[in-house]
């Protein structure tokens, strides 16, 4: 989708710059004049919100990095120094910690939006996959960042997750020791995680640029899933969506601020206020809430299959749960993009959300907790985890392909313009 650039330099300076490095033209074409579907709802403000989150994390991260000591003897104390002595240190630390949670909250909503409206489908497959890359980078960055304060959860979470690699036969333990810089998580682990945690957000930033570029090639999807047919379907990004994104952002900031100022530790774990102790394992090792669904999938497989150990199968399942996202565009057989017009698929989508939330709950609980008993058989948390893991994969591998074929879509409007002029459903037969 290429548009004629409508940028007009206003001054001699602007003309000079435009002839040498047309950045202002690029900004104008991409974020001012860019034709955007006029029917985008508030779920579409989360892209802008995510950009804000990334900038907040980078800026607070850099200021924290000015005071953080990445040696295992000093790290915990340096965080307390930040909280108590550095001017506004407590604020920067809480913003950064809560910001990570807000970042993931926004990215999950952003992804669910993409799934609901079929934004992962042709011609936006690469856009979707770049997004999956960003998610993966976020998970790695967040995991490493949580290790840095060197509390009990930092240390033991790092231990459990790096031990995952030992599930790989033959080369697993050497990889784990290479990753960790020794025989167990320790100072070398902390220092390298710090270096990488500082680096990856800039890699994320680069992938975000690619992601936005890919978006601008195809143009935005919209709630009807019907492609833009002409200028009657669009409005320029500025001022229509700059103001809407700004409003959405401020609402998001209200939630963000409520946590930072009034419940900054609600999303964290008290055990991380205990300095790391390799001799004492916490009662329940849990990652941060946004990693809980993946943790649940990892722990859900407790039986060996053939030569594959339960531990290895759990690792494969966890990795597969992210890999399956990448191939979504090719799993979905429906010609219709938006679930608005896919009545059979819609309930499965909402069930899928419940499955994800359920997996998060399971990830936080002890695996052998009994939910109910049927005679001799006890249905435990770990069984629920397995059930929900199966449901998770079924959504992608069974539901998406099947429903697309079996479903009869609802009548769709002919265009975006028609859908906004006549309400969501097209004109009823007179």
């Amino acid at each position, binding site marked *: 989708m290429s548009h004629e650039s409508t940028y007009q330099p206003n001054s001699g300076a602007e003309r000079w710059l435009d002839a040498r490095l047309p950045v202002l033209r690029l900004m104008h074409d991409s974020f001012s004049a860019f034709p955007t579907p006029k029917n985008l709802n508030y779920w579409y403000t989360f892209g802008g919100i995510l950009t804000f989150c990334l900038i907040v994390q980078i800026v607070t991260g850099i200021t924290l990095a000015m005071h953080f000591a990445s040696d295992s003897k000093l790290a915990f104390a340096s965080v307390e120094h930040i909280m108590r002595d550095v001017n506004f240190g*407590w604020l920067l630390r809480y913003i950064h910690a809560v910001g990570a949670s807000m970042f993931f909250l926004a990215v999950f909503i952003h992804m669910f939006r993409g799934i609901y409206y079929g934004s992962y489908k042709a011609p936006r497959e690469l856009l979707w996959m770049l997004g999956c890359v960003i998610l993966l980078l976020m998970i790695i960055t967040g995991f490493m960042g949580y290790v840095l304060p060197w509390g009990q959860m930092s240390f033991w979470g790092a231990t459990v997750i790096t031990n995952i690699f030992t599930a790989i036969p033959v080369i697993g333990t050497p990889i784990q020791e290479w990753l960790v810089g020794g025989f167990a998580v320790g100072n070398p682990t902390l220092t390298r995680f710090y270096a990488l945690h500082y680096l990856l957000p800039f890699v994320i930033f680069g992938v975000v640029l690619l992601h936005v570029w890919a978006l601008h090639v195809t143009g935005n999807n919209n709630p009807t899933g019907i492609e833009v047919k002409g200028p009657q379907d669009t409005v320029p990004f500025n001022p229509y969506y700059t103001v809407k994104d700004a409003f959405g952002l401020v609402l998001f900031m209200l939630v963000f601020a409520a946590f930072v100022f009034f419940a900054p530790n609600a999303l964290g774990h008290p055990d991380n206020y205990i300095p790391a102790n390799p001799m004492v394992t916490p009662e329940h090792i849990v990652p941060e809430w946004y990693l809980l669904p993946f943790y649940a999938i990892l722990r859900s497989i407790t039986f060996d299959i053939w030569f594959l150990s339960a531990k290895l199968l759990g690792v494969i399942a966890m990795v597969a749960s992210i890999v399956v996202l990448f191939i979504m565009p090719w799993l979905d057989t429906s010609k219709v993009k938006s679930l608005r017009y896919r009545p059979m698929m819609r309930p499965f989508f909402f069930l899928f959300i419940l499955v994800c939330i359920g997996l998060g709950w399971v990830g936080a609980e002890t695996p052998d907790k009994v939910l109910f008993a049927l005679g001799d058989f006890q249905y435990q948390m770990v069984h629920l985890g397995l059930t929900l893991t199966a449901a998770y994969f079924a959504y992608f591998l069974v539901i998406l392909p099947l429903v697309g074929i079996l479903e009869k879509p609802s009548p769709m409007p002919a265009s975006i313009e028609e859908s906004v002029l006549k309400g969501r459903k097209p004109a009823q037969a007179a």
Partner: protein
Amino acid sequence: MSLTIRTGAIIAAFTAALSISPALAAGDADHPHTPHEGWSFSGIFGHYEAETLQRGYLVYESVCAACHSMQYVAFRNMAEPGGPGFTMDQVRAIAAQHQVPAGPNEFGETVDEYGLPLTRTATPADYFPAPFANEQAARASNGGALPPDLSLMAKARANGPSYIYSLLAGYEDAPEETELQPGMSYNPFFPNHQLAMAAPLYEGAVEYPDGTEATVEQMSYDVTNFLMWAAEPKLEKRKRMGFQVMAFLFLLAGLLYWSYRKVWADIKH
């Protein structure tokens, strides 16, 4: 909903309610008590009471500091706003009552003629001195148990303040069926109900200068408040700033919403 299902639902709810309440009434490791007046620092207008923190400091200093360090709290912190509210002169006087480890003397010695580490008088810039030189010394003096540092204890436990308060005020005789390990004391609020710390507080353990009666409950309340301040000295500043930020964001949200309506007024969407 059919009559059968409705009746069943009511019975289920009633049973659930019954099963929860005995646990709450007795109080145990899963259900710490909050003092009946609540905590002054909770809620959006949370704040500390300076007199309570000063009494709490006295309890820490007189009772707890014999075994528990507070390595992240400095004497000067007690003169900062939002805390116990001592004056700088009072803080200097308090610091001067403590000795902290000193570096080598002019002869390069690090111990005195008795083999004890050299010390110097503390200044306000110094952190609360630790009662033991290292973990091994602490364990040796406490039957193998390590008294944890208290700087962050209020944040290092779920429902930290209520947990600490319940624990300190909650010592009781072990029930008959409990087998008490040697050197341990019974406390229903500690995980597994047995801990190496014997009840540290007893009636009149400290004498409050302001005349407040030093009951176990009062001292537990005061020292819990102090420990919460020690863990979150910026609490008052944080909540005050939060109120201002939220008010500002509401205003900005309103302005942006009207701007949004104005910008989109002509567009059907």
